[in-house]
C-alpha cells in the first residue's frame, strides 16, 4: 500500500506514518511544481497533525551517472526543504474548538503561517509559494494484492488521510538552469529531538511508492527491516547497512520477476535496478512534460540505456501500482498488468490543492415496527427481492437471479431506482442490497429483516448512505419517506402488535 503502515512502528504511531508522496508539474501552470505528502492512514473527519512532528519535503538536485547497466543517479549538494509544523489546539470556546494552526518553514528559513483545513491554502506575499494542510480523500488506489498477485478493487476505497501540499514557482526556487533533474522525498522527524537519544531521529520517509511494502516486505520468512529502512537518512543511507538492503531488494526483485514464470531481469540488469532503487527518491525533471503515465519513465529509460523523455514524477492520478508491477514482472515487455482499481475514491483535481476533500462518514436511517402477524407471514409478503408491497412502488422488474440480481423500481411519481441484491439469508429472514442509481447517495446500502417476537413479528429496515449531489437534509428526507411509508403500509396490512 504505497507507504501505508510500512512497519510495526508506523502502526504504533500512525500520525507519523507517511502513506504517499507526489511530485509533479502543476497541470494548470507549467511554471509551478507541486509536492504532496500524506500521513495517518484511515484518518477520520476530526483528524489532526501532531504538534511534535516535522512533516517535511526534501528536494535534491540529481546527476545521472550512467545508462543501461551503469544506470545511476547521484544526489548533488543543492538541497531545498519545506517543513510543516503544527500546534496544539487552543481552548474550546462556546462555538467549539479552535482550528489547528501551523506553519511551513520554506527554503531559506522564512515561514508561511497556515490554518489546517483552509481549502484555498496560504500564499507568500510574493506569490512564489502556496501551501495547504488538512484532511483529504486518500488519493492512492491499489488494485493488486502483491503476494498472490490477485486483482482486487481499490482496497483503500473511502479512506482518508491528512495531506500537506506545497506548490512553488519552479524557476525562482530550484534554479533549473543549473540542472533540471531532481530527487524528492517526504519525511517525518521529531520536532524536538531528544539530545540523549541514541537512535536516528526519523520516523518515516518515502521516495518511490511501494519501496517498503510491495518490495522489501514481500520476501517470505525473513526479518522485517522496514522500520530500520524508515529510520535511514534519505540521500545518504548508512554504508554498513547497504549490503542488507541490497540483498533484500535483490531477493524481492527476483521474486517479482518470476511471477509470470519468465525471467526478464538477468543478473546484471537486476544489479543495476537494485542500485537505482537503493537511491530511493521520486525522480522528476521539471524541464520535461509530466503526465499520469510518466511515473518511473526516467528510471526505466535510464536502465534500458536510452535518454528519458518525460519529467517522470508522480501525479495524483498516476496508476503507480500497475505501472510498478508491470515493470517488475515483465519489464514492460509484455502486456500492461491492469489491476482492479482504476482510480482513487475521488480522482485528483487539476487545481490546488489537487487532492480532494475527505470522504464523509456514512449516515444511516433505521425504522422498525412490531406487527401482529407471524414472522413467516410477514416474510412471505416482503421477503422477496422482487415483491411488490411498497405503496410508493408502481412497477418492479427483476434482472438475473441470486446474488447480484437487479431490481428496477418505478415509483408512483415516475422515478426510477435500480438496486442490486448483495446478501440473502432465508433462515434469518433478511436480505441486503446496494443502490445502483436513483437516489442522490453513493454508496447506499439497505437491509430488510423480519424477526419473530413474543407478540408477532418485528420488521427492521435500515439504510446507510453518503449523500451525493444533494444536501444531507434532502437525502435524509427522501430515504426517511421511503422507509416511513413502507412501515406504515405494513402496519395497515398486518396491524401493530400491542
Amino acid at each position, binding site marked *: 500500500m504505497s507507504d501505508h503502515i510500512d512497519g*510495526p512502528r508506523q502502526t*504504533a504511531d500512525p*500520525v507519523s506514518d507517511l502513506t504517499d508522496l507526489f511530485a509533479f508539474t502543476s497541470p494548470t501552470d507549467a511554471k509551478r511544481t507541486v509536492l504532496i505528502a500524506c500521513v495517518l492512514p484511515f484518518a477520520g473527519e476530526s483528524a489532526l497533525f501532531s504538534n511534535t512532528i516535522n512533516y517535511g519535503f526534501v528536494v535534491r538536485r540529481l546527476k545521472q551517472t550512467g545508462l543501461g547497466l551503469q544506470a545511476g543517479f547521484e544526489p548533488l549538494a543543492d538541497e531545498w526543504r519545506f517543513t510543516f509544523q503544527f500546534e496544539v489546539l487552543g481552548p474550546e470556546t462556546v462555538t467549539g474548538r479552535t482550528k489547528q494552526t501551523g506553519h511551513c518553514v520554506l527554503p531559506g528559513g522564512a515561514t508561511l503561517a497556515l490554518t489546517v483545513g483552509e481549502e484555498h491554502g496560504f500564499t507568500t506575499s510574493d506569490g512564489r509559494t502556496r501551501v495547504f494542510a488538512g484532511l483529504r480523500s486518500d488519493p492512492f488506489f491499489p488494485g493488486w494484492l502483491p503476494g498472490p498477485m490477485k486483482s482486487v478493487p481499490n482496497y483503500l476505497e473511502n*479512506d482518508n488521510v491528512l495531506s500537506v501540499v506545497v506548490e512553488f514557482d519552479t524557476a525562482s526556487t530550484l534554479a533549473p538552469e543549473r540542472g533540471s533533474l531532481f530527487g524528492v522525498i517526504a519525511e517525518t522527524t521529531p520536532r*524536538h529531538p531528544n539530545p540523549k*537519544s541514541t537512535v536516528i531521529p526519523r520516523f518515516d520517509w518515502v521516495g518511490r511508492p511501494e519501496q517498503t511494502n510491495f518490495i522489501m516486505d514481500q520476501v517470505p520468512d525473513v526479518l522485517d527491516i522496514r522500520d530500520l529502512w524508515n529510520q535511514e537518512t534519505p540521500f545518504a543511507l548508512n554504508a554498513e547497512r547497504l549490503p542488507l538492503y541490497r540483498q533484500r531488494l535483490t531477493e524481492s526483485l527476483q521474486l517479482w520477476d518470476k511471477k509470470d514464470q519468465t525471467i526478464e531481469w538477468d543478473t546484471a540488469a537486476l544489479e543495476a535496478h537494485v542500485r537505482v532503487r537503493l537511491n530511493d527518491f521520486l525522480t522528476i525533471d521539471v524541464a520535461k512534460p509530466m503526465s499520469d503515465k510518466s511515473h518511473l519513465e526516467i528510471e526505466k529509460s535510464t536502465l534500458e540505456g536510452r535518454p528519458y523523455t518525460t519529467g517522470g514524477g508522480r501525479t495524483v492520478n498516476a496508476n503507480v501500482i500497475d505501472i510498478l508491477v508491470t515493470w517488475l514482472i515483465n519489464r514492460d515487455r509484455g502486456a500492461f498488468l491492469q489491476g482492479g482499481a482504476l482510480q482513487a475514491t475521488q480522482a485528483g483535481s487539476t487545481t490546488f490543492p489537487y487532492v480532494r476533500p475527505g470522504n464523509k462518514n456514512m449516515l444511516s436511517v433505521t425504522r422498525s415496527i412490531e406487527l401482529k402477524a407471524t414472522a413467516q407471514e410477514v416474510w412471505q409478503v416482503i421477503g422477496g427481492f422482487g415483491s411488490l408491497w411498497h405503496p410508493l412502488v408502481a412497477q418492479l422488474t427483476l434482472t438475473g437471479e441470486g446474488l447480484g440480481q437487479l431490481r428496477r423500481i418505478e415509483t408512483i411519481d415516475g422515478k426510477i431506482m435500480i438496486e442490486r441484491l448483495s446478501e440473502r439469508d432465508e433462515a434469518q429472514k433478511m436480505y441486503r442490497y446496494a443502490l445502483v442509481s436513483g437516489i442522490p447517495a453513493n454508496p447506499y446500502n439497505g437491509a430488510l429483516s423480519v424477526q419473530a417476537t413474543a407478540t408477532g413479528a418485528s420488521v427492521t429496515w435500515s439504510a446507510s448512505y453518503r449523500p451525493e449531489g444533494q444536501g444531507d437534509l434532502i437525502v435524509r428526507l427522501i430515504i426517511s419517506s421511503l422507509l416511513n411509508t413502507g412501515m406504515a403500509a405494513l402496519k395497515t396490512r398486518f396491524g401493530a402488535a400491542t
Partner: protein
Amino acid sequence: MNTLHSSLALPAATDGTLALINHESILDRCWQTIELHPDRLGIAAQLIDEEYRRSHFLGDAAALDRLLTLSETLLQNCSESGETYVLAAQIASLVHKFDQATQYLVRAKELDASAHSLLRQQLSIDHAIGHNWKDVFATRLRLSLQNPSLQNLVALGALYAEMGLYQEAEQSYLRALSEDREHSPFGLAWACFQLGVLFGETLEPAQPATAQYWYEQALSYMPLYTHARVHLAELHLDAGRLGTALDLLLPIQDNDDPEVSWRLAQLYEQKGEAHEASQHLARTLRNFEHVLSRHELAFADHAVAFYLEEGNNPEKALQLAMLNLDNRATLRAFELSHEAALACEQLALAQSLTDRAKLQWGHLPAFARSAFSFSTT
C-alpha cells in the same frame, strides 16, 4: 533499585488531546469502513489496536464487546484467510479466552497465516498464561534485541517484573523511554505506567514517591489515562491526601470502570461521608457484576481483590480466583487464589495452592518475594 528517572529526559510526544482526537477519528472511520467492507483485514487489525487503547487507557469495557462483534464479523466474512484467525486469536486473548485463542491459532496455521504473526500471537498467549516461560523469555529477549521498540521493551520489562528481576524490569522500561522511537503518547504513557506499578505495587517495600512520579509522567502524556489516575489516586489515599486523590478521580467519575467507583468509595469512606461511600460502593458492585457477566475471564482477577475487600464476599472471590487460575496459572493467579482460600478459611486448599505454586514457580526470584514466602500454609 536505582531510581534513574531524575537523569532521564523523557521524550517529547504528540499532545495527548490531539492523540485522543486522532484515536477517536480513526476508530470511528474504521468501524464505518468495516461495515461496508468486512473483508478488509488491515482495517480490522487497526480496529483491534484502537479498541484495545480505549479499553486500556480509557477504561472502556464496552470496547471488548465491540471487539467480539468484530471477531464474529471477520469469521463470518473471511473464514478462508489465516490472518482472520490470527486476529480472532488476538481478540480472544484480549478477553482472556486463551483456550479459544489457541484453537484459532491452530486454524490460522492450517490456513498458512504468516509465521511472524503466529509467533507474535502465540508469544502473547504463552506470556499471559505463564506457559513455556523459558521460551517466552528467550523470545522476548531476542525480539527486543532485534527490534528495541517500545512495545518489545515494555513487554520484556513486564516479564522481568513477573520473574522478580526488578532491576532488569526497570532498566527495560527506562530503555523503552530513552530509545525515543515513538512519538505516540499512548506507548510512552504505558511505559511510565508500568514503572509506576513496578515501584508502587510490585516492589516490596514499595517506593510510593517514585511510583507517584511515574504515574504523573504517564498522565502528562495522556491526561485521561484512567488506570494511571486510579493508581495515583490510591497512592494519595494511602498518604491521606484526599483532596489530591479526589481531583484525580472527579474528571473520570462517570467512567464505568469499576476501579474508579471503588476508589471513590474508599475516598469518601476515609472522608467520613458514609452516604457517598455507600453509593459508590453500590455502583462498584453493579459495574463489577456487569463486566463479569460480559467478560468474566478478563475481569476475574480484578474482581477478586474487590470481593476480598470492600466487596466483602470471600466465597465469590475464591470462585473467581480459581476460575482465573484455571485459565492462567501465573504466580499472581496463585497468589490471588491463595489469599482467597485463606479468607474462606480453606486451609487445605491454600496449602495445595502453595505446593502447586512452589512446584511451578519456586525457582523464580519472584516466588521468594511473593505472598507464599510469608505463608505458613
